[in-house]
């Protein structure tokens, strides 16, 4: 113990300890005591070596305490005259303001050639070309929908809807869907193609809203095609009976679409 205080070049503690050991040795008459004395000598010589190292070190005397005090001053410490009873620590009195390290933070970067950290401005959304690995998970999810969304088919069905009652709107959409399907029953209609309005995000959401009614009422159904993209088709009236019996066929799906993805 007391290693640090012994090492302090200004202290003579080491010498004192050695002198005391010398005196004690006179009283030694047992082997065990001699062994203890030898142990002490080993430790003392280690400390001596360290002290010598500190002397030899080519560094001019550097007073770290003074440095610390000057740093505190730089950080804006408020030193009080009276001997304040600082309840917690045994440091010299003084109040270090909250922005102390901020002051240091303002000065410090001048001494470093640190590369500024790089962040994408808008978040990354392009599915190709590849972007560093951390982002790859995100890419996979969005690129799925992207392929379809990038080329919305002609949405002739999306005429202006002027605040019609929801049911009317839903009926209208159903009719559109049926017409489309009749015209070409073998081509699946991509769900996204169906609902997305390339000019209006709000309208797209509205369309999805209306379509969800159709699904709920069993008037249309959504399936996944080979690419695991949703396609929508109207249900045949006769098929209703089958639908009901296959209770498990009706699932709830939550589709989330925010403005960025829509874009």
């Amino acid at each position: 113990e007391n290693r640090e205080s012994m090492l302090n070049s200004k202290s003579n503690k080491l010498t004192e300890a050695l002198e005391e050991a010398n005196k004690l040795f006179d009283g030694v008459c047992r082997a065990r005591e001699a062994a203890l004395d030898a142990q002490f000598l080993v430790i003392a010589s280690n400390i001596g070596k360290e002290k010598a190292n500190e002397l030899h070190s080519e560094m001019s005397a550097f007073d770290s305490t003074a440095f610390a005090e000057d740093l505190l001053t730089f950080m804006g410490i408020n030193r009080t005259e009276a001997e304040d009873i600082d309840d917690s620590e045994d440091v010299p009195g003084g109040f270090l303001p909250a922005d102390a390290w901020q002051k240091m933070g303002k000065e410090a970067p001048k001494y470093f050639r640190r590369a500024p950290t790089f962040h994408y401005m808008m978040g990354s959304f392009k599915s190709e070309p590849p972007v560093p690995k951390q982002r790859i998970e995100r890419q996979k999810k969005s690129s799925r929908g992207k392929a379809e969304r990038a080329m919305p088919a002609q949405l002739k069905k999306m005429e202006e809807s002027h605040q019609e009652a929801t049911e009317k709107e839903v009926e209208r959409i159903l009719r559109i869907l049926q017409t489309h399907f009749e015209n070409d029953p073998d081509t699946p209609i991509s769900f996204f193609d169906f609902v997305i309005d390339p000019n209006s995000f709000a309208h797209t959401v509205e369309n999805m809203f209306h379509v969800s009614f159709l699904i709920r009422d069993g008037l249309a159904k959504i399936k996944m095609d080979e690419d695991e993209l949703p396609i929508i088709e109207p249900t045949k009236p006769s098929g209703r009976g089958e639908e009901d019996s296959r209770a498990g066929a009706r699932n709830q799906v939550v589709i989330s679409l925010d403005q960025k993805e829509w874009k």
Partner: protein
Amino acid sequence: QVSELVQFLLVKDQKKIPIRRADMLKSVIREYKDAYSEIVNKAGRTLQEVFGLRLVEIDTKRHTYILINNLPRAEGQYLCKDKEKEKMGLLLVILSFIFMKGNSVKDSALWEFLNLLRVYPGKPHGVFGDVRKLVTDEFVRQKYLESTLIPLTDPPEFKYQWGPRAEKETSKKDVLNFVAKIQGKNPTFWTSQYSEAEA
């Protein structure tokens, strides 16, 4: 390939943890292993010409790299978060202490010094939180500090020195100037440190 690598490096550098060649090969270069050094060189040139950054290999055995700023330091506001700057403040103080004390200090001596600044290893700090972790973990991982075991100590003790990133991002001269500024003295006041810094 080159631009992929450039992006990869820029993002990986965010945490300031050195980038390993193995990661670069795995994530970006993959099949083009043979062209590795060419790709890396080109990426380095791009980083330099477009971003003003230098790609530096800090460990030639384990092949780890860091990015540092190649541009001369400009006056004025530094665009980075306050948190980051405060940490740099603490780091600068630590690096100064280490240098002025002969380039190597014992763990105990460092904390004795930091205590004077009201920074304690066992006590959560208002600004830095778990300071011990910051110093012994984060700064060491980022290669700002290097921690080595002092032989024949029982219980084991550690000593701190400047890490390779510190060597590249700053200099003894800069740090001495900082100390001189804080203490209101001329850098030549500390003759041996001064001559070492000028060497």
